[in-house]
């Protein structure tokens, strides 16, 4: 099974391999597809004109969408951040200098021109740096996508500014879950208690650090 995956991956990148090219059509990557569709899909427009030359062709859905912002050839000076929660957009196309996100692999700093990345976030501190201002939020979990055109999309389930967190509750929760972790029996209980300990200790270090 895995040999086939490797075979297909190779076929995608080599265009001259005779046996593979016949069997597998190489599909373009999303970033290679031209984002200029303002004139509409040309095959559709031609077919329309043959059938109904006097009527303007209707617009297709893709023409109503904003095209993907192109990847600039020079390094942009600012990062455009879309920081969204399920119920609100905290930052929408905000131009900032840097964002530091709590990825599962550690704190990750995102600057303009960052390599395209998909990062899963763990409970931790997100900081948005704009000039000399730093805005900090505590994120419960989520994902961060960095695109090649220096757009960063940060999706979080729950994000709160640090001053809305109650330190007494955090301590209480931490001791409660540490106790649960010690007395847990089933795998699932242990996992839940471990999650509790992780979240509360992250909250703690966010408040103190």
């Amino acid at each position, binding site marked *: 099974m*895995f040999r086939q*995956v*490797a075979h297909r991956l190779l076929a995608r990148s080599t265009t001259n391999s005779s046996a593979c090219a016949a069997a597998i059509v190489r599909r373009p990557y999303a970033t290679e597809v031209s984002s200029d569709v303002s004139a509409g899909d040309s095959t559709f427009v031609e077919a329309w004109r043959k059938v109904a030359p006097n009527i303007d062709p209707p617009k297709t859905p893709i023409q109503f969408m904003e095209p993907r912002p192109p990847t600039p050839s020079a390094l942009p000076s600012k990062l455009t951040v879309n920081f969204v929660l399920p*119920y609100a957009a905290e930052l929408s196309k905000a131009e900032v200098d840097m964002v530091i996100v709590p990825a*599962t692999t550690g704190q990750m700093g995102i600057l303009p021109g960052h390599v395209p990345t998909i990062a899963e976030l763990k*409970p931790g501190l997100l900081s948005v740096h704009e000039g000399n201002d730093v805005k900090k939020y*505590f994120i*419960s*979990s*989520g994902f961060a996508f960095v695109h090649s055109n220096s757009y960063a999309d940060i999706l979080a*389930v*729950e994000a*709160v500014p640090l001053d*809305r*967190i*109650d330190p007494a*509750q*955090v301590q209480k*929760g931490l001791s409660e879950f540490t106790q649960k972790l010690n007395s847990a029996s089933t*795998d*699932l209980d*242990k*996992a*839940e208690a*471990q*999650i*509790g300990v992780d*979240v*509360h200790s992250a*909250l703690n270090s966010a408040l103190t650090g």
Partner: protein
Amino acid sequence: MASTAAVPFWRSAGMTYISYSNICASLVRNCLKEPYKSEAISREKVHFSVSKWADGKPQKPSNFLSFSIVSIFDFVDLGFGCFRHAIIDDYNF
């Protein structure tokens, strides 16, 4: 090509990412200061009623309930061995 890739501890314990994410979010909401805490809890409330099915027909639906997302998983145990998964028939808003 490892099919034994490292999995997070919650997945090896049988939890899905969505449950993990929802549990983290509700723990964070519990640690908020007062006016924000009640806003957050009321924002995340879900209203639902559950009806069990037998012989292709729905039985009497339960009374109108409202719980936050995470406690739904604890509350509804349909006894099919689907641990921690709730099948919700209709949302009453």
